[in-house]
């Protein structure tokens, strides 16, 4: 007969084993049982990644599910999950505007130990993209996913149109050419609206993320900035010039309804051939250049760095929530390294993805398919960033409100810039 002590020991050992299994032994063993769930922005980049998911599942046995929604709703859906005890989303798509607040709130897992343990090569990643998504020095929380630096997309067929060229020369005494300054661009936009019978600029001036992102290009293009070594320098003559030109373009160059328009509206307008230009994400060119999606303008759109030499830089990255199991973290890391590896990145780039790895920008197959990649690389390299800090999302709201109020004439350009600068100072001091 078994003595009571040894029976007790056996029971305890069995309970301990079950408990260990339940809490999850670290590592690979359970990763393949995980279903990865991510909330994704409903943009072409997501569709590109989505198409590759079966391949990843086939290789690893890990299922990946994407929920696609519009950008403005993403933050609201993510935050409650990240503050809960266990996040439903175990793989995160992180916009650079959240790269300040998410790690500051302690919601993200530091990826450094995973990088070290797996030997994942970070060398090819464009350093400015890594820095953009990781404003803190205490770790690496977000791995670059794709780049959305902004540039000037414009209709080359209209620039080459003899009648328009003649009219432009007659009116200005100059040849019709890509604009060298922000003022030139706004003047060109107004000219096209008057002479070509379409909107000179498809503008996304809805209050909030759309107008603050768009305006940032005008600001950098005019030589202004938000910060200089951590000091707020927004309240400047350059910023006033930028806002005045921004408003001028909304009123006299853009489509009707620009003040309520978002990225989707501008995309539709440009795709339909109803606009001459738009200041937008450079990867939009691959979508607009698609003869099936946009037959009216495919092959007729070019890209340039913002006049003045600088546009808005932006990007998305991958993160892993802190409040998920180790097995989920392991599975998420497996996915991130796979999708951001060279092979998958090139495959994505050939499908229209905006790379974050320098080796993809230099890949012969990619360059052969997209001859404008040299300009795209300049757009990425010359981009300047919106302030990334804990309250970036709130600052976007403050700036967006002031821009919108100035555009509707409810406040002056001077007051809008001063208030926006003060708002930034207050939030940075918080």
């Amino acid at each position: 007969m078994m003595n009571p002590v040894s029976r007790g020991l056996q029971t305890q050992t069995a309970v301990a084993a079950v408990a260990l299994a339940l809490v999850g032994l670290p590592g690979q063993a359970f990763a393949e049982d995980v279903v990865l769930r991510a909330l994704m922005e409903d943009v072409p980049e997501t569709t590109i990644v989505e198409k590759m998911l079966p391949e990843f599942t086939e290789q690893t046995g890990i299922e990946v599910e994407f929920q696609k929604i519009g950008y403005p709703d993403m933050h609201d859906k993510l935050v409650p999950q990240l503050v809960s005890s266990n996040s439903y989303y175990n793989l995160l798509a992180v916009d650079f505007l959240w790269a300040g607040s998410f790690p500051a709130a302690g919601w993200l897992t530091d990826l450094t130990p995973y990088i070290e343990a797996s030997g994942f090569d970070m060398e090819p990643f464009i350093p400015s993209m890594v820095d953009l998504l990781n404003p803190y020095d205490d770790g690496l929380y977000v791995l670059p996913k794709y780049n959305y630096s902004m540039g000037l997309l414009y209709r080359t067929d209209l620039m080459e149109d003899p009648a328009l060229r003649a009219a432009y020369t007659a009116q200005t005494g100059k040849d019709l050419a890509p604009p060298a300054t922000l003022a030139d661009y706004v003047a060109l936009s107004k000219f096209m609206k008057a002479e070509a019978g379409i909107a000179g600029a498809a503008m996304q001036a809805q209050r909030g993320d759309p107008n603050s992102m768009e305006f940032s290009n005008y600001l950098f293009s005019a030589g202004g900035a938000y910060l200089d070594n951590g000091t707020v320098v927004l309240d400047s003559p350059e910023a006033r010039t930028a806002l005045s030109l921004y408003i001028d373009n909304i009123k006299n160059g853009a489509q009707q309804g620009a003040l309520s328009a978002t990225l989707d509206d501008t995309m539709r307008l440009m795709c339909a051939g109803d606009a001459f230009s738009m200041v937008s994400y450079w990867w939009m060119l691959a979508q607009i250049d698609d003869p099936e999606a946009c037959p009216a303008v495919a092959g007729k759109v070019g890209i340039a760095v913002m006049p003045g030499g600088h546009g808005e830089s932006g990007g998305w990255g991958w993160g892993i929530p802190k409040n998920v199991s180790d097995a989920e973290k392991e599975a998420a890391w497996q996915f991130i390294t796979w999708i951001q590896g060279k092979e998958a990145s090139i495959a994505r780039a050939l499908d229209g993805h905006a790379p974050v790895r320098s080796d993809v920008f230099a890949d012969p197959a990619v360059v052969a398919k997209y001859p404008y990649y040299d300009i795209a690389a300049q757009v990425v390299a010359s981009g300047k960033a919106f302030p990334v800090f804990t309250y970036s999302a709130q600052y976007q709201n403050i700036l967006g409100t002031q821009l919108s109020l100035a555009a509707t004439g409810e406040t002056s350009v001077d007051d809008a810039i001063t208030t926006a600068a003060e708002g930034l100072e207050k939030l940075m001091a918080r």
Partner: protein
Amino acid sequence: MERFGREWRIGWAFAAPGLSMLTIVMGFPLVYAIIMAVSSMTLLHPQLTPLTGLDNFAVLLADPLFWDSLVLTIRYSVLTVTGEFVIGLGIAVMLQSVVRAKPLYFAIITIPMAMSPISVALIWRMLLQPNLGIANHLLESMGLPRLDWLGHPDLAFWTMATVDIWQQTSFVVLILAAGLAALPRDVYEAAEVDGAGALYRFFFITLPMLRPVAAIAIVIQLINEFRTYDLPYVLTRGGPGTATEVLSLFAYRRAFLGLSLNEGAAAAFFLLVIILILTIAFFALLERGSRRP
């Protein structure tokens, strides 16, 4: 009946399960929100302590955007509820005289109410899209200029109110139609015998007798409109400028974009107090009116 007698105890016993549930699902969140409004809780500091007293309220009261959104919410609520009531009453009275296919009319009228506000907002956003929307296409085909429905600061407010009235009127119609159907016929018959005309009957019999039902419809709609969030969120995001920034949207921005759950809760608390005051004042007025000889 004895005050704490058997019936009293049985009454409370039957009511207790329901009241307990109400306390859990309504009372607890309400109390928690109030505590949050006087706390230091933010998304970066998810603890209620230390309590900050009325600081969060003071921050809001010092913010001109808060006052703008408060005034706008009052204007918006009064405008939409008035519109819904006037149009709803008109339709309800007309439906009273309909004899054939009445259920069909009711079914059609109920459609907007059955749709979720988000769907309604998305549909109207497409219809009112200035360049590709059908509304401007119709205007143009009639030789009229295109309108910037949601992008013009003056027009956006009225557009949003109109969409709201379009959706919410059906609820008012249903309530008022039920109220009209329940009015006693003999009063009308007596008035007709006395030679009262249709207008006289409407203003001096129908409206006074409908007052309790109308009051309920108005109070419910006032509460709904004060809480409006979905429509401005989808249609305009509060813009252009702050032309459609209602108080609930302001509270949302504070809580989720500003990460300040405490200030968001304080803004929502203001909303609650206003709705409570309005409701009490409205029923007090109604009570006083019904006592008047």
